[in-house]
């Protein structure tokens, strides 16, 4: 069961804040994060990795990206 975060259209640090909130909430499993800039893609990836999560996959999705983050 994966949850998702939609951070499209939001500028930094919102996508990172939202992702970290979700990470705190679910603790492990999978999270889908939608972002619309390369900057947000990099920032979210860096933040997830700093919390011991992995960036499993990154897809181009519409005008941005879908990141699949996972742990456990």
């Amino acid at each position: 069961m994966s949850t998702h975060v939609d951070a499209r259209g939001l500028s930094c640090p919102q996508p990172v804040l939202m992702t970290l909130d979700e990470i705190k909430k679910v603790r492990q499993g999978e999270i889908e994060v939608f972002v619309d800039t390369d900057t947000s893609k990099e920032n979210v990836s860096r933040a997830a990795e700093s919390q011991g999560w992995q960036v499993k996959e990154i897809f181009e999705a519409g005008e941005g990206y879908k990141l699949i983050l996972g742990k456990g």
Partner: protein
Amino acid sequence: MSQLKNFFATKWGIIGVGAFIGVFAALLQKWGNPGNMGICVACFNRDIAGAVGLHRAAVVQYMRPEIIGFVLGSLIAAYSFKEFRARVGSAPIVRFILGAFAMIGALVFLGCPWRAVLRLAGGDGNAILGIAGLIFGIWIGTLFLKNGYNLGRTTKTYTSVGWLLPIVMLGFLALMLVYPQIDGKPQSGILFYSVEGPGAMHAPLIVALLVGLAVGFLAQRSRFCTMGAFRDFLLFRQNHLLLGLISLVVFAFIVNLIVGQFHPGFAKQPVAHTMHLWNFGGMTLAGLAFALAGGCPGRQLFLAGEGDGDAAVFVLGMIVGAGFSHNFGMASSPNGVGPHGIAAVVIGLLTCLFIGFTMRNKSA
């Protein structure tokens, strides 16, 4: 291409970009820019406001090519790596006001975060108060961010919207070429030029433009941001951007030592005053305004170059804010704060608090 793309987002990428900016900022000073002002985004936008007559402070009027280069360099980088995305609609009026007050605060201290660290690298002890104020202001901003402060989402728009600020910058460059500086004259055509003071000190146009383009390109790739450096550390304990900023200080310091530009002390520093409380207070206002707007003044220029129309509005707010700042006697001088500088800081802080407290989205 993608390897290069990834490199700039790495630790060594951001450290390299910080080093590049530090070295060339110190060299720009050697090549003619004012003391400890190799690059100052606030001061240079203020000089541009003077060049087009939005204020008539005779000593700070010059169309700074570095600013033009920052926007156009970022535009080139964004197109080269397919990152140009025209977007608007995240509370532009708020960004305008934040830009204006960020500028007003920075001009009480006499420098933006970029110049604050360059002043430190040049030995100016007053910068310590400014940087402390900056961090304090950003810290207040992080409290708002933690409590749901959010200016809302942007939406995609016509590509040409994202081109507007770059076109304005091209227009400024064209004006400089059509109305070049005439030695000893305060005006050339419709442009104003300082004949003395900091506005009269500048590196040659082509050198300043090329350095500006290079910095704009590299900063777009690396997301270099002087406010984000402190914000990310305070919010997430992440030191990525901070490493870039530290690298800037270290390399500017080394070059200053080599070329004889390091003069430690508090008194008689170039384009600086020693009123500690207001160095701190001015930068608290600037730091809070930058944090609420999501980027330092340089980052706003780079974002505007990659199509962010809201960042472009912030930039215009800064230029207009500089006009108010000098017209209303709010800007400092080496003699100390202006007659209305203290009132401006208080009003600016109240405005930022109003924005921070009232623009919260509980569900975000």
